[in-house]
């Protein structure tokens, strides 16, 4: 009897698993609303934006569509493995930093026929470089949500104490170097500075904007060979090295979990700090008494920074592309992007109309979780730089390519060699370019095999 019951329980379990799997695959039944799955990453409080604002409004506007929301940890691996298992979410929040390899391999659905179709969107309302980043072999694989930008964060008290003017869009490389030297203070002369003029995660991540400022770039026209060994990049690395002083050894490590130089900046120990626009709300939250402002990156031969972008993609595995497009269109609408900025203010919206609207200047934050901006003066000092950079085209997403991981790895080695072993910038960048291009060739050969055999 017990055995029969055990077998029956097992059979029920298998039936249940099969049922859940069928549901997860998004099989459409005519008598039920279409069920879409969407996924995001981010801080837990960001979920409220989706679960309490976006999704209820979308479902109200589209009663025939239900949205199941997922917040995934270890996002990249989770999405990749979901796709490998055939259960990828229909609508996936992605980032140019890590998604280009996925796009190249066919994870996303091309969206051109929806974007340019009768129920489409106006491409011209989006910051144009973002479309360039989302294009692969002539097709568009997502709709931009935001654009983040690297910038200079500065401690106003430390600048005031030194009697120096705050950084602005006219600052040059020389200004940065001079300020670094002048603001660094070692009051007791023990060789360990009490205040560090400039600190950031030393490595390829913060080296990137200097390449653009020197007039260089990362890829050839086809985006499949790096040109990081150009004279401009070599000049950038030579300058970057002069910014580093013996005690500023905090190396870049994206996995350091918030224990990086941002903490020293919050503690008032660092005068100038380089990070992305997303850092502003957390700095204000973690150090409410810190008087800080944000300015564009300094000019080299030209004023430039580096950017990436979050965007909405539709999985190539979706069974409901039309419904998925409706959700993508909703999530990238002017109203949704305004709300995104006002609530989280981690990265400015990707639409000009949202960026130029009065709503852009009214940052509310999320009550009890993210502080808002309290006055036009505060908006000016913390966010006023953003429209200047975007309207003038002082940033680029050109670095985002399917092969960025490989470039960043070898460029990181080159920066390490230049900083830690006093390596010749020209030699180390040439080595980085050689290694990156060799790996790209290997990768292309491997993918050609997969394409011939698998599709």
């Amino acid at each position, binding site marked *: 009897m017990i055995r029969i019951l*055990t077998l029956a329980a097992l059979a029920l379990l298998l039936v249940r698993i099969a049922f859940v799997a069928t549901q997860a695959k998004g099989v459409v039944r005519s008598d039920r609303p279409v069920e879409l799955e969407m996924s995001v990453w981010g801080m837990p409080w960001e979920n409220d934006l989706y679960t309490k604002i976006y999704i209820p409004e979308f479902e109200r506007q589209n009663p025939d569509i239900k949205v199941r929301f997922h917040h995934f940890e270890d996002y990249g691996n989770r999405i990749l493995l979901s796709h490998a298992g055939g259960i990828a979410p229909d609508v996936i929040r992605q980032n140019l930093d890590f998604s280009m390899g996925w796009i190249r391999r066919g994870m996303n659905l091309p969206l051109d026929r929806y974007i340019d179709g009768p129920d489409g969107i106006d491409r011209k309302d989006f910051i144009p470089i973002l479309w360039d980043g989302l294009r692969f072999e002539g097709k568009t694989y997502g709709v931009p949500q935001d654009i983040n930008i690297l910038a200079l964060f500065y401690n106003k008290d430390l600048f005031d104490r030194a009697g120096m003017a705050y950084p602005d869009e006219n600052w040059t490389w020389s200004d940065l170097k001079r300020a670094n030297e002048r603001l660094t203070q070692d009051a007791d002369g023990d060789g360990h500075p009490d205040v560090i003029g400039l600190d950031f995660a030393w490595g390829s991540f913060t080296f990137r904007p200097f390449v653009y400022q020197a007039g260089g770039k990362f890829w050839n026209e086809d985006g499949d060979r790096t040109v990081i060994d150009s004279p401009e990049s070599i000049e950038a690395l030579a300058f970057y090295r002069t910014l580093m002083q013996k005690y500023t050894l905090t190396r870049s490590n994206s996995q350091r979990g918030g224990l990086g130089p941002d903490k020293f900046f919050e503690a008032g120990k660092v005068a100038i700090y380089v990070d992305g626009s997303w850092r502003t709300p957390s700095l204000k939250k973690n150090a409410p008494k810190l008087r800080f402002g944000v300015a564009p990156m300094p000019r080299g031969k030209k004023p430039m920074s580096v950017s990436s972008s979050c965007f909405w993609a539709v999985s190539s595995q979706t069974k409901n592309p039309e419904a998925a497009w409706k959700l993508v269109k909703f999530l990238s609408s002017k109203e949704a992007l305004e709300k995104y900025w006002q609530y989280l203010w981690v990265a400015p919206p990707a639409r000009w109309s949202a960026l130029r609207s009065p709503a852009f200047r009214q940052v509310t934050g999320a009550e009890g979780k993210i502080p808002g901006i309290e006055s036009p003066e505060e908006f000016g000092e913390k966010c006023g730089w953003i429209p200047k950079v975007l309207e003038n085209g002082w940033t680029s997403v050109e670095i985002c390519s399917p092969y960025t991981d490989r470039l960043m790895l070898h460029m990181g080695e080159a920066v390490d060699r230049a900083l830690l*072993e006093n390596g010749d910038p020209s030699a180390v960048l040439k080595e980085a370019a050689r290694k990156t291009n060799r790996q790209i060739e290997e990768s292309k050969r491997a993918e050609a*095999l997969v394409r011939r055999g698998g599709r």
Partner: protein
Amino acid sequence: MKPRRNQAAWGWEFIAPALLLIGLFVVVPCVWGIGLSFTQYDAIAPARFIGVGNYSRLREDPLVWSTLMNTAIYVLLTLPTSLALALLIATALHQKWFVGRSFARGIYFLPNVTSLAAVAFVWEWLLNPEYGLANAGLRGLGIPGLGWLSDPELAMPSVAAVGVWHGLGFGVLIYLAGLRSIPEEVHEAAKIDGAGFWQGFRSVTWPLLTPTTMFLTIMGVIGGFQVFQSVYIMTGGGPLDRTRVYLYYLWQSAFQNLEMGYASAMAVLLFVIVMVLTLVQRRFYDRRLQAWQ
């Protein structure tokens, strides 16, 4: 006595759930992984059989050999240090005169039950060149601070030190169990024969601890070759690739470069290396045991 047929059947039924779970979540993935190692697979497009292509590439990939070398350095730095410290502490804790032994055992085991990821974060903070406690201590002694994780010469020893610290409690616990299993009469006989502490330790305790040392060495080599978390969090493989260990490169191949087939071949190679090293150690210790018997 031969069990009755239905008794055997009941036995199988009792272990069936465990067998099913092990089969599904251990055996099948292992076999699947070996199968993948003969394919070109990026987890997005379907896999394509390419024979021994990945294994040929392993032979020619300089990073495979440099990361294996880094891993071997990590094992050589951690294993002897861990064994020596664990034996020293366990011997001290085993002495009757040691006050607060139970408390001390708990303290030594505490890092071992703490997540290595959390431990690595804390150590990264302690070793921070500007504001870390380690350099503050050095500066207090008039010694300039060191780039514990940024100096190419110091990074691997620093990561290894964290590994030793984290795993020490386990070694202490096992050595304590080994010391307790040695009959008191053997020590007393050695004393009657005129052996002092050191001579008794060298001639009696150490040989009788051979099975314990064998276990710890084998586990240490297996664990050392699988070092990943501390490197992932503390150094990201740098500086200058000095801490890029084998498993970190395997992870990069699989999840950054999306070369799952190649990463699977790397995993198979790691399995073979660890198995060979384990067999060699078994043989070495078996011979020593036979010689003493």
